[in-house]
């Protein structure tokens, strides 16, 4: 852009100061997570003799290992299902101009406006009657349906902007619709698939309300409910709680830092449809 002037330097200092203010809570989080419970000095004073003790105890007593595995399982399986069914559905919805197609698309888009709170309680009853309460598979089923409208919306918008030439050529060459989808359409959908993957994975991984309803009191937990259960158990033992919070954040931040470009672009660009 422009040259680096004295004003740019001043702006740089200001922005760094703002970033430091934003990071302040994280400093306290790390600072206290490494502090022995017996140390009662000010939360903002650097911890003098850091210890791993809180992390060991939180890991052992919080069932965080199991929760981590469950979160990985639920997120992976449900996001794969959502991407598969939504991309497949978006193909005819974006291409066909028949009445049923427009109607079906509008029906699915209705799901973008309906807050999930409306469906939550009746669905809770269904899940209970199916005997799925306390099972992580209830969550897989839930997210596989809940994320359909948004993901189909992303795919349909992207597909409408794609030329039809390739699939028409494939059809002339004798490809069936499923083969054309698999080998011609799907590869072209890669950019929007990355976006959809990122947005779905973050919202499924972080969701708290649904597992709170479906998994309460069971021994199967995802990370957010395990953390909440931990806080309920160790009420004011904050050094321990902070260690648990930090354990739950580290995998997410590691993935974020490794894939920051795709993740930020996914959030920034994906919503333009």
């Amino acid at each position, binding site marked *: 852009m422009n040259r680096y002037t004295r004003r740019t330097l001043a702006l740089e200092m200001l922005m760094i100061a703002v970033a430091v203010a934003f990071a302040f809570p994280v400093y306290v989080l790390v600072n206290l997570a490494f502090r022995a419970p017996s140390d009662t000095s000010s939360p903002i004073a650097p911890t003098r003799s850091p210890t791993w003790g809180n992390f060991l105890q939180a890991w052992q007593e919080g069932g965080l290992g199991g929760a981590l595995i469950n979160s990985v399982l639920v997120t992976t399986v449900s996001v794969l299902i959502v991407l598969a069914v939504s991309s497949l559905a978006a193909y005819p919805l974006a291409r066909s101009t028949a009445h049923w197609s427009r109607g079906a698309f509008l029906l699915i888009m209705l799901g973008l406006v309906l807050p999930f709170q409306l469906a939550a309680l009746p669905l809770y009853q269904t899940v209970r009657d199916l005997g799925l309460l306390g099972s992580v598979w209830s969550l897989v089923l839930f997210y596989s349906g809940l994320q359909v409208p948004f993901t189909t919306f992303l795919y349909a918008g992207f597909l409408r902007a794609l030329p039809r030439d390739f699939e028409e050529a494939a059809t002339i060459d004798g490809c069936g619709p499923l083969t054309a989808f698999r080998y011609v359409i799907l590869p072209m959908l890669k950019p929007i698939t990355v976006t959809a993957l990122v947005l779905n994975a973050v919202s499924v991984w972080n969701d708290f309300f649904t597992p709170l309803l479906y998994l309460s009191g069971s021994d199967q937990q995802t990370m957010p409910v395990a953390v909440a259960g931990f806080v309920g158990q160790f009420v004011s033992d904050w050094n321990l709680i902070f260690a648990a919070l930090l354990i739950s954040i580290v995998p997410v931040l590691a993935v974020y830092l490794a894939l920051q470009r795709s993740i930020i672009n996914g*959030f920034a660009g994906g919503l333009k449809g």
Partner: protein
Amino acid sequence: MKRFSAPRAHAAPPWWFTAPAMLLFAFVVLIPSARGVYYAFTDWDGLDPDFAFIGLDNFTAMADDPDALQAIWHTLLIAVAITVLQNGLGLLLALGVNTAIKSRNLLRVLLFAPAVVAQIVTAYLWRNLLGPDGAVNSLLAGLGLDSWQQNWLGDPDLALWMIVLVVVWQYAGYSMVIFIAGLQSIPKEFHEAAAIDGTGPVRRFWSVTRPLLAPALTINVMLSVIGGLKLFDQVYGMTGGGPGHATDTISTLIYKDAFTLGEFGYSIALAAVLTVIVAAISASQYTVLNRNEKAAS
């Protein structure tokens, strides 16, 4: 009548491609939502298969229920406050980061980071920071501002604003990222042309940048309004709706009424009210902002 048109291979993909998505969507969203609308007019307790249709009783009861009215008010207040503050701050951050400064990439990654963390986790973190002996009060003491110390979450007049503050802290970077994408889509020539014409930076922002940011603003406002209206995790984690009912939102009240009081019918009636609010606001927002966007472009 088609004449002279080349025979195009119009193999419209078959309808059954939509079937798996439709079935899942119907099972998880459509059917339960429809049942929800029906239950809102009943006295269902969540367990008993015998329940009665009671017409508008749940809604008239709501009109006489100070907790419910207060929760609806809090929900609207939170949504508006978050939208204004998060987007205001997000825009300032975007304008600061999207410049010639050297740390811009690092700042973008750092400021966006809170948005990928679970809300319930940041809620517990801040519950401690804002506690009587928490880091915020310690920081104030360290700065010699002892008189500013507060019981931030224990004071009914402050607690709601603290929740707003935490949401803004978590998602200002998210708004920023969308605004940066908007800023980068504005051709440089526009600014150069305006600069050559002798336009100052403020005027340039107002006349060149602002109108072209309309699409980014539309997305940001939609996201923050809807996120604010549905807010649950932050309230649950920071205050549990307290002190008293000072920070209850529609979503926390739905949860409490259903799972601690067993009033499923009433709770679903609250969800129906939330649905109407969300639908009305998204519809009007869509119309207004779309019009602005068209006018601006």
